[in-house]
Each structure stands twice: as structure tokens, then as C-alpha cells.
């Protein structure tokens, strides 16, 4: 949900923001560049690199990187950050440290120092540290490390000026972590085999000794067979000296050094009063009270997005604004500008149907073509804009607002605590809650966020479930809009079926997908915070902008496809072709074929098509329910498909779609059969 630009300066300086997850790198990026990247209160918001031009140096590039806990990476997003430092020459690395978690930050500082990179340390969130009785002597830290150290409260823009000044004084730290003799000797040996790179040979040697598997591509490109064999030999010889893995040994030396620095520069006073937010956070994870909290959150979400967004707002925009004013006005305008003999009669099935009252000349046929292109049954204004602006837009807007509040409160990781055991049954763990819930915003972004998961197996399962059955905000809103008028049982059946399908497919996938070791559930819980209105507003606007840029063109494209098919009389042929499935298997009216067809482009667009059919009374409740289950499970939208190709490979993506497409109809057909056999009345 954030844009990228790669307007790389040819001669200018390059800076990188580096640090632990959730320490405020993206906020500082925003403050320094004036560009917004999504900021949330949970670790792993940034999984991709953002680049921008720093305000203080017009000829520069500032890079925002995914959070890391160690420069020996353990997940794909951490690899991204390490690779940037390895492959791009930095004029300064700005390390952001959460002032209340200094030791964890210093573990990274020491590695950056080892790399020999020009460094500036920014102690951020000094307000939160202060509230917990923690004070850090920035001058003492600067003296110890030999680099500038500044304090900031980035969310309030405090200290940013000082940070900018400090960046100019960035220099390599003269602090060195000393390892034992054996290790130092091995480091020396390996360093002798390495070529010059952007980072020091010493640090690279330590990474190679630690057995960092993610370095393999670099090794292949930069080292000969002889060197690789020699390094392996040194490593094996060294491994015999220690009980623990070398990576643990190395990390331990660094942690000991970090701890010594913390002891020197930080003071903690005991604070009796813990913030109220902390109590709320505990409540949200409580084995008993956590459940009503979750239900409450869901209900609030339903009220705001389902009832207010998909009900009140859509009624207003679709019913009053579009069908009451814009639609008729546009029709009137085209009728006046491009006249041909026809009358519109507002039949309930489609307000834009008309009858031609006389035979048309060639010119009039041309007028009619343009008329239909804009205000016909598959017109740009009557369908593409009406669906995207009047139906989906209010829904995604309300969703993005609600979702932004949830993100910034710190609730989502706590939801992971509540759902961990359910996730373990489908081969995942509580960490997967982040990509899965993000999928309710946008499946494409969520697929990217699967990077925060440790194992390939988890990433594949999450990607599959997202593609299969997690409805994105737009689709979810439209679905709630259709379910709204139906009895509540319908919503329960829909949610129950989708949940069962996700669990079943997840369970089967966990048995089928081969894994590379079992991941343990270990997740950092950010503090609960009161969401800041400005961030919610900015974030919502950024996401709406993204929606308008990405979704509206696809809506227009989809409508054009339908329009063309209709012109070529291929739509009717397709409806006939799909009749055995759509009518035979699912018992749906043949018109729904069009909705499924555009569902290939975007599932929410398909759902919007169903919404239009349902609101004109073309489907009975059971038909609505069956069509909704089918469209929810329908193939992922084009953007998501390409994201799966990019992240998981074309083969995986094709396999997934090949499974999902027939499976969606199978589930829909089964549900139809059950509902009809049991004569469930809705």
C-alpha cells in the first residue's frame, strides 16, 4: 500500500535508516523526506524498501529498510536490509534505537560498527522510556561509540533538527568487539580471502563464520571455489572449539559488549505506576476476557464498515448520488449530445436499459455506441465509476480508517497471542495473524507481508489461504452489503463456511507442503498506544490514493471487457458456456456469469456485480449466499496473482489458481446442494 520511486541520484549521497522492528524508522523517513510510507504500531510494517530524497540534502537518497533484530538474518525481510548494506555504498547509516530497549539496539550498533559504516545513532521514543523511568546518557554513549548520538520523539517531530545536524557528522565507530583468540584468528584467516566490499572484511568474515546461509548468492558471485572451500575448512575447524553454534557464540560476545555499554550509560528508576494502556493490552490477551474483547472489536468493525460504510454511505452514494442524480444526468447529457431514437424505461432490473424506437442510421449507430460505452448496461459511468466510487469507495474508506486504528493501537499482535493455538493446527503460528488480518485490507500487500514468516512452508500456506478465502476490504464490504438485508443466519453460514474451508485447506496444506524446519511462535508485542489522529488520517488517505490508482483502472478495464464481449455477442455465448456450472451446479441466474467473469480481474468487482444483481431482486437469499461463498473463494485478483508470482514463483502461483478455481465452484455447489436439500429458509 505504499508507492516506490527509484529516482536514484547519480552523484549524490546515500543514507539508510536501520534498526530493530517497530522503533519508528518509517516515521523518521517521513519526517526527513516529506514522503509518507505506511506507519503502524507492530513489528514488520515495512517489508519492502522505500526510497526518497532527504529534505536536508537535495541531491541525496534516503532508504527506509525493514526492521532487523540481528544482521545475521532470520527471515526474508531481514535479508533485504542486510543486502542493502552489503551492496549499496552508504554515506551514512542512521540507526534508530528504541530508547527503552537499548541493549537490543546496541546489538545492531555493534555490528554496524564492525562493518565500518559511517554511523549516527538516534535514540527514539525517549518519552516512552522516560515514562518507564529509563534515562540514557546520550553524551556518554556517543563517547563510547565514537559516533554522534541524538535523542528524538519522532511522532511529535521532536529532535529531528538535531538528527539532521548529526547526520553530517556521521563517522565509522571506533568501538570494536573483541572475540576470543581462536575466533579472532579464524576471522583474520577468512578476511584474507575476501574481496573489497562496501563493508569491512572483518564483519563479512564473521558473517561467513556464523554460517549465514542467506549469503550464498553473494558468495557464489564473489568468491572462487578455492576460497569457499578454504572458508569452509576454517569454519569446521573453529566449530570444534565450541559447544554452541558459531552464530550463537558470536552473538554472545556482542551481547556481552552491549550489556556493558548499557550498564555504563543507562539508569533505570523504579516506576510504580504502569500506564493504563498496559492493562488494556493485558486484557486483550487474557485467556477469558480476551474473547469478549475480540468479539467487541469484530462487532465494532461490523458496525462501522458493514452497517455505516456498506449500508448508510453506500445507500447515499449509490442510491441517492449515483442512481438518483449522476446516472440520470449523464444519460440525459449523452441523449442530448448524441441523439438517437430510444426511450429509457426505468425497469427495476436495470435502470439503464432502453428500447430503440426506430431503425438507426450509421451515424446514429455511432452515437449509440458511445452512449452505451459511457451510460449503457456496461458503461464507464453507469458501471465502472458507479461500482468503484459509489459502492466500493465508501466501504474501503471506512475499512481503512477502522483498520488504521486497530494497527496503531497495537491490538493485532495481541490477536496473534489469542489465536496461536488455532494457527498451529494449520501449520502456522500466531505470527501469521499479521499477514492474514492485513489480507482483510488487501491480499496483494498481505502476500508481500508473508515475508515476515520464518519458513517457506508458512509463507506458502499463508499465501494460499490469502488467495483462496480471505476477502479484501472492498470485497468484504460489498459482501456485508449483500448480507445486510438477509437474516443474520446468512452471515453466520457465510462466515462459518469460509472459516471451515480456510481451516480445512490450511490443515491439508500443512500436511502436503514440505517444510524446512518447524517454526516456533516467538513474537514481539509492541506497547498498546493511543492511535494518533494525524497518522490515521494520513495513512487512510495514502491507502485510498493507492486504491484509486490500482483498483479504479482495473474496474474500467473490466467494464471495457464486458462491454466488448457484449458488443461481440460473446457474453451471451459465455453465459451459455458457463450455464452448466453457474445455473446447473450453483442454481444461480445466468447474469451472474458476468460477475464471475470480472471477478477474474478483481474479486471485489465481481462481488459488486453480485451486489447490483441482488439489490435489483434478481437473486433469492439462498442464491445470494451461494454466489457470495463462491466469489469469496474465487481466484485472487490480477494484482495479487502477480504478487504471488513475484514472491513465490510462477509455478506455485499457477498451481494455486488451478486449485482455487474449480474448488470455489465445488464448495459453492456443495453448499447449494445442502441448503436446497435441507430446504433451509432464509
Amino acid at each position, binding site marked *: 500500500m505504499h508507492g516506490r520511486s527509484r529516482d536514484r541520484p547519480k552523484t549524490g549521497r546515500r543514507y539508510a535508516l536501520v534498526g530493530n522492528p517497530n522503533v519508528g524508522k518509517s516515521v523518521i523517513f517521513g519526517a526527513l523526506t516529506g514522503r509518507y510510507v505506511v506507519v503502524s504500531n507492530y513489528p514488520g510494517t515495512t517489508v519492502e524498501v522505500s526510497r526518497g530524497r532527504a529534505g536536508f540534502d537535495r541531491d541525496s537518497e534516503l532508504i527506509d529498510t525493514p526492521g532487523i533484530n540481528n544482521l545475521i538474518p532470520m527471515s526474508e525481510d531481514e535479508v533485504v536490509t542486510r543486502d542493502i548494506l552489503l551492496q549499496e555504498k552508504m554515506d551514512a547509516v542512521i540507526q534508530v534505537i528504541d530508547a527503552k530497549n537499548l541493549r*537490543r539496539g546496541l*546489538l545492531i550498533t555493534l555490528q554496524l560498527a564492525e562493518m565500518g559504516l559511517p554511523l549516527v545513532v538516534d535514540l527514539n521514543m525517549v518519552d516512552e522510556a522516560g515514562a518507564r523511568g529509563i534515562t540514557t546518557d546520550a553524551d556518554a554513549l556517543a563517547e563510547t561509540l565514537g559516533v554522534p548520538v541524538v535523542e528524538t520523539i519522532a511522532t511529535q517531530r521532536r529532535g529531528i533538527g538535531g538528527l539532521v545536524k548529526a547526520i553530517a557528522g556521521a563517522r565509522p565507530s571506533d568501538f570494536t568487539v573483541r572475540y576470543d583468540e581462536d575466533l579472532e584468528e579464524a576471522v583474520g584467516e577468512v578476511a584474507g580471502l575476501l574481496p573489497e566490499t562496501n563493508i569491512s572484511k572483518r564483519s563479512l568474515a564473521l558473517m561467513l563464520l556464523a554460517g549465514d546461509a542467506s549469503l550464498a548468492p553473494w558468495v557464489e558471485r564473489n568468491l572462487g571455489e578455492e576460497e569457499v572451500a578454504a572458508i569452509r575448512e576454517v569454519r569446521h575447524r573453529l566449530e570444534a572449539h565450541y559447544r554452541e*553454534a558459531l552464530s550463537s557464540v558470536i552473538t554472545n560476545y556482542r*551481547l556481552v559488549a552491549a550489556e556493558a555499554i548499557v550498564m555504563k550509560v543507562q539508569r533505570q528508576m523504579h516506576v510504580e505506576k504502569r500506564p493504563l494502556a498496559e492493562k488494556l493490552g493485558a486484557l486483550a*490477551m487474557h485467556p477469558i476476557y480476551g474473547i469478549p474483547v475480540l468479539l467487541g472489536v469484530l462487532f465494532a468493525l461490523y458496525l462501522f464498515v458493514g452497517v455505516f460504510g456498506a449500508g448508510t454511505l453506500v445507500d447515499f452514494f449509490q442510491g441517492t448520488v449515483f442512481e438518483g442524480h449522476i446516472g440520470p444526468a449523464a444519460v440525459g447529457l449523452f441523449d442530448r449530445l448524441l441523439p438517437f431514437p430510444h426511450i429509457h424505461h426505468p425497469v427495476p432490473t436495470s435502470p439503464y436499459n432502453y428500447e430503440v424506437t426506430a431503425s438507426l442510421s450509421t451515424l446514429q449507430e455511432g452515437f449509440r455506441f458511445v452512449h452505451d460505452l459511457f451510460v449503457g448496461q456496461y458503461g464507464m459511468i453507469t458501471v465502472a465509476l458507479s461500482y468503484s466510487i459509489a459502492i466500493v469507495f465508501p466501504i474501503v474508506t471506512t475499512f481503512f480508517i477502522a483498520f488504521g486504528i486497530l494497527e496503531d493501537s497495537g491490538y493485532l499482535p495481541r490477536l496473534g*497471542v489469542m489465536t496461536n493455538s488455532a494457527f498451529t493446527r494449520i501449520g502456522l503460528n500466531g505470527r501469521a495473524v499479521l499477514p492474514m488480518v492485513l489480507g482483510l485490507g488487501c491480499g496483494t500487500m498481505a502476500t508481500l507481508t508473508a515475508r515476515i514468516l520464518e519458513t517457506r512452508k508458512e509463507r506458502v500456506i499463508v499465501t494460499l489461504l490469502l488467495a483462496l478465502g480471505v476477502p479484501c476490504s472492498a470485497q468484504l464490504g460489498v459482501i456485508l452489503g449483500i448480507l445486510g438485508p438477509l437474516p443474520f443466519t446468512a452471515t453466520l453460514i457465510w462466515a462459518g463456511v469460509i472459516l471451515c474451508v480456510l481451516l480445512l485447506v490450511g490443515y491439508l496444506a500443512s500436511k502436503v507442503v514440505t517444510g524446512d524446519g518447524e517454526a516456533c511462535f*516467538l513474537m514481539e508485542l509492541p506497547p498498546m498506544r493511543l492511535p494518533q489522529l494525524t497518522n490515521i488520517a494520513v495513512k487512510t488517505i495514502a491507502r485510498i490514493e493507492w486504491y484509486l490508482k490500482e483498483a479504479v483502472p482495473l474496474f474500467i478495464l473490466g467494464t471495457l471487457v464486458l462491454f466488448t464481449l457484449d458488443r461481440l455477442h460473446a457474453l451471451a455465448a459465455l453465459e451459455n458456456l458457463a450455464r452448466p456450472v453457474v445455473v446447473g451446479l450453483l442454481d444461480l441466474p445466468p447474469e451472474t456469469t458476468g460477475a464471475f467473469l470480472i471477478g477474474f480481474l478483481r474479486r471485489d468487482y465481481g462481488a459488486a456485480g453480485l451486489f447490483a444483481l441482488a439489490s435489483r431482486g434478481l437473486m433469492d437469499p439462498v442464491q445470494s449466499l451461494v454466489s457470495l461463498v463462491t466469489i469469496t473463494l474465487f481466484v485472487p485478483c490480477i494484482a495479487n496473482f502477480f504478487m504471488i508470482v513475484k514472491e513465490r514463483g510462477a509455478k506455485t502461483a499457477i498451481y494455486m489458481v488451478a486449485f482455487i478455481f474449480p474448488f470455489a465452484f465445488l464448495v459453492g455447489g456443495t453448499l447449494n446442494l445442502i441448503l436446497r436439500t435441507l430446504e433451509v429458509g432464509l
Partner: protein
Amino acid sequence: MIEVSEKRHRHGHLDWSSHAKDEILELIWTQAEEGKDDLEHLVETANEADARDIIKALEDDGLVTFKDDRALLTKKGLEAAVGIIRRHRLAERLLSEVFDLEDEYVHREACKFEHILGPEVTDSVCTFLGHPPVCPHGKAIPRGECCAKFKRDVRPLVVPLRDLEPGERGRIVFMTPKEHEVLDRLSTMGLIPGSVITLHQKRPSYVIRVGETDLALDEKIARDIFVKKAE
């Protein structure tokens, strides 16, 4: 070490290695535990081919006496056997609980431990394990001096994190995850031996605080973090 004793025996030394004697003393004890003290049965059950000769040697040492066809431990023999059994069973507990070894290894390795642990180390192991009353198979572990000293505080000194109650604090003594990646991950989050953690809750997932970092983890990890309770 057992190999060594056999070699000596083959060379015709009459001075039986202490290992072989220990084994027989242990056997007499365990047989007695099951209510058997028949000499013939003892000889049959023993692994050592020359069990009869070893028992004879034990009699010479004043550790065993014979009454009818029964082999009984003398007071001195009893003392020695109690020590052996205690070391063996404590070792079993240490190996199976702390190091999570398979049963067959546990037995084999415990057999070695019983011969080599000195009294101080034995008491330290016992204290470390919290003076456990029984071995992993449910048989009694003879009490040592250390147990009497700590009788009032029967709670173990070092416990897995999952034995802590919500609200309690503990100082990490060591961590034993099976994969070193997990260990590395824990350490980068600030979980290292010496750090003090507060357990907030155990269900639905474990939530702990270390420094100012709140972490959620599952029982799999909580099982492998050993802490000393802190006030």
C-alpha cells in the same frame, strides 16, 4: 569404563574393578527393592559373567553377607549402594529432563555417571533438580544431605519457565532449544542467561517481559528456558 574393567579381569587380576563391584551392589539394591535377595537369581540376572566371584570379593570387602542362600548388604554395603543408586537416578533425571535425551541414552549414560560423580557434584545436581523424590521411572531416589538441608524449601532451584506462575519473575539460567536458530532469535530479543524475565500469562500463549520488551511465545519454547526464581 566398563570395557576397562573387563580387560583387567581378562588379565587375571583378582582385584575387581570398583565399577564391576558398583554394578553388583546396585543390582543387589534394586533386587531388594523388588523383594528378591536370592543369590542364584542375583547371579543369573547380573550382566557380569563372573558375578559370583565379584560377590565373593564384595564379601571380602565387608559389603555383603550371606544368610542361607540370600545375599544381603551390610551396613557399609548399604551406604555404598545408596550412593550409587542416588547418583544413577539423579543422573537419569538430569539427562531426561534437562537434556531431553532418549530413554536408551539416559540409561546408558546414567550408568556411567553413577561411577564418577563425587559427593559435592551429586548434591549440586540434586539441588539443581530441586531434590526430586523419584527417578523418571517412578523409583525412589535415596535422599542425600542436601535434601535434608533444603527440606523446608522443596521447590526446585531451577525450573523451566512453564513451571513459573503468572506474575512471578525469574532469572534465566540457561536455554536449551533444539535448534540454534531459536536460541539466536531469543538472544537477539534480549533473552540471555542472566536476564530477568517476568511471566505475564501462560494461556492462550505465554507472554513474558524482558527489559521493556514484551514477547509472546508458545509452550515449545517456554519448556526450553530454565530460570531461577527471583523475588
